[in-house]
């Protein structure tokens, strides 16, 4: 038998019914704040975070990243019509946009629920 209750995780501490459950084993990364479920089975407690917000955020970043990559490569490709090796004028802007997305993904990695 087991029993499950709504719970939250803040700063790596699982809280259920207003009380911290120090003994809870967090089955996900547990780095970011989350809501989820505390499953109790005899003397053991497991916390399962709702991780779909992480997935949604990753997809959002990918949605943001891919058009930027397309834009950057299109600009590069447009200049590859002759012997010139000069980068397209928009390259610096495109790289900055890609770097910004990379920063967001790095930040997300350190805050996975």
């Amino acid at each position, binding site marked *: *038998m087991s029993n499950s209750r709504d719970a939250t995780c803040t700063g790596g501490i699982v809280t259920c019914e207003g009380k911290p459950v120090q003994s809870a084993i967090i089955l996900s990364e547990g780095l970011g704040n989350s809501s989820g479920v505390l499953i109790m089975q005899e003397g053991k407690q497991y916390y399962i975070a709702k991780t779909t917000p992480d997935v949604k955020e990753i997809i959002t970043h990918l949605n943001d990243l891919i058009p930027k990559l397309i834009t950057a490569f299109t600009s590069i490709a447009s200049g590859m019509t002759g012997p010139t090796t000069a980068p397209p004028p928009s390259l610096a802007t495109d790289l900055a946009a890609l770097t910004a997305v990379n920063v967001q993904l790095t930040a997300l990695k350190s805050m996975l629920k």
Partner: protein
Amino acid sequence: MFTLVSWWKMRINCDHGYYSFFPEKREDLALFLELFSIELVFNRDHYTYSLLKDLPKYVISPTPYGGFLTTKCFEGTPQEIMKEFDLVYDISKGILVPTQSITYSGRIKTIQRNWISETAMIQAGTIIGTGRIVNFDGIFDFDLRKTVLRYWNE
């Protein structure tokens, strides 16, 4: 022929201080409640004390569980939780107490291969010899005003 168990009887089960009463007839229950001036509530297939019926099947510490402040989280039936925290129902106080806090001493007599309690109601945790009676199952005999035990252990 002498018989230990009268017509008026009721099965009592005690699982680590959780009391379950199984009257065969309504009259038995009514007589029992009147005899001990107690109230019992129906819980699935048995009668028990209202506090025991309402005990949750989990505890998130620190939380009072039946009046006792628990020190860790645990999930299970009330009997399993009481066993984990070594608690028994105190009949006189109406709350859960540590087994070790029961200071009553009693005796179990052996008559015709039956174990018979010295008192009408057996308090779980009662000291019997060098041990304590924590689990038992028996028949309360209204004539004897005693419980004839089928088994008992610590």
